[in-house]
């Protein structure tokens, strides 16, 4: 009998200890999801006292609608004093998927380009781009831009009044290059508090070759920044500013340094269909 008591005591002790071990293992395993823990913790703070007869598994038993109705009628709250003890959330973490994921996808862009810092020529063109994203932040992009120019009034006046041709200043005819694309900013904008537009802000740096109206061409350093506005999961609108810095032969045979500020506005198509988590 004495041995039976010892056995019983040992079993109770074992159950008590193992239940603690089991709870501890739950806690340690859940630390991996910090965001969820924060939300749950805050929810627990504000939650009203739990009903003792409530069990999570009881949902399966509430299949009968009449039973639910009866329970609702019986469950009349009369004590609201607990509401005064509610505390505001001190921190809420919101986890949301990206509206326009890019990882492993190709982005094809068609855009209109114009050079904004040339006082002598109105230079406009078309840009075709193709980008591949290794991650949401990093990608690589190839660009081909073809441009055409016409003289501005100032160039005509310089020629007519002062006898100097602005052609010697030159303008780019086409550019081909490759950029590394880094997208550290992700955000959302609300249009007049009515519609949300997800967007991202990116930076590009790379190089290529520019052909100039003077007949020469030269290796080009290309640095840019821009924004991409998601219209759907496949289409986006975008703009960017980029600087093309290059040296090429001028009309008089000397090598000149050119620095053009290019504004590009276009639309993009993403392929393949996005896969979601």
């Amino acid at each position, binding site marked *: 009998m004495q041995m039976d008591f010892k056995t019983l005591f040992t079993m109770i002790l074992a159950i008590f200890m193992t239940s603690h071990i089991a709870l501890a293992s739950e806690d340690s395993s859940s630390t991996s999801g910090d965001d969820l823990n924060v939300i749950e913790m805050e929810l627990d703070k504000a939650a009203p006292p739990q009903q003792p007869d409530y069990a999570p598994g009881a949902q399966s038993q509430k299949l009968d609608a009449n039973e639910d109705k009866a329970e609702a009628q019986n469950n009349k709250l009369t004590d609201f004093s607990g509401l005064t003890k509610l505390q505001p959330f001190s921190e809420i973490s919101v986890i949301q998927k990206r509206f326009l994921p890019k990882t492993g996808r190709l982005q094809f862009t068609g855009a209109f380009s114009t050079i904004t810092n040339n006082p002598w020529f109105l230079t406009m063109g078309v840009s075709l781009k193709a980008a591949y994203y290794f991650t949401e932040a990093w990608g690589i992009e190839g660009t081909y831009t073809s441009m055409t120019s016409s003289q501005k009034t100032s160039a005509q006046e310089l020629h007519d*009044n002062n006898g100097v041709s602005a052609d010697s200043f030159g303008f780019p005819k086409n550019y081909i290059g490759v950029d590394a694309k880094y997208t550290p900013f992700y955000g959302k904008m609300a249009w007049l508090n009515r519609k949300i537009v997800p967007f991202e802000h990116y930076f590009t740096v790379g190089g290529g070759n520019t052909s100039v109206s003077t007949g020469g061409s030269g290796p080009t350093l290309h640095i840019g920044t821009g924004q991409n506005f998601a219209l759907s999961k496949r289409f986006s609108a975008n703009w960017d500013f980029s600087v093309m810095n290059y040296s090429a032969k001028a009309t008089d045979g000397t090598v000149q340094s050119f620095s053009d500020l290019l504004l590009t506005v276009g639309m993009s198509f993403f392929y393949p269909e996005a896969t979601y988590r």
Partner: protein
Amino acid sequence: MIKNALKGLSLFLIFFLVTFLLQRVAFAAEVVELPMEELATESVYPVFDKPVSVKNRNIITAGRFEIGAYYGNALTEPIFNTSKFGFSAYYHLNEEHALGVLYEKNFSGLSKYGEQLKDVPGQGTQIHIDFTRAPAPESTMMLDYNFNAFYGKMSLSKSMVFNLTTFGSVAAGIVKYQNKAYPGIAVGLGQKYHMTKQFSLRWDLRMFANNAPIPFYSSTNNPYTLDPTDGTKNAPPYNQFSERLTYTTNLNIGGAYMF
């Protein structure tokens, strides 16, 4: 002895079995299995009859004043110094509309092209043009209206979050040259990045349209010249320069403080 050993072994086995079972139960409580067809396969935004995208706005602008300073660059100015300094002050009528004034002071001197044209090869001779003899822009003062159409937030690699505003602007006022002041208008687009609730960084791109004196003065059949090496003719008086409508694209970058 053997009996005690068997009892000890049985106790150990019971202990091990109970521990194993309880741990299985504890882990089983964490597993939530849901039918795959009931899980969302993509992210969508909800559609409401009366959509309100921004609640508890972090940056409140309504009824507040904003002062700012910026550096501007006249990207398409051919002859004169393209740099300028600007100051602005606005009153936000509400979250979307702001009204204010801006003042810009041009730097003196010539642009890169203006310097190059001092001495350029012509047809069989060198051409010298001194554009400091022409009237240069001095300052701009305008009444400016800002329409804050977009308000949002952006995060830097999930490490920091800040708000931003995208706005359109329409301005009207005067552009003062050395000879006289001309009426002008400007339209633009820009963004403000709110670093704090008071301080923001801003950039905007504006296109100015105003009458302006043409610096390309022709000395042919005229008693004056821009050529400083021509000892027979003097620099033209400012009233000798003709005028026309001029478009200038400006890129401004600066900061603003709201109170």
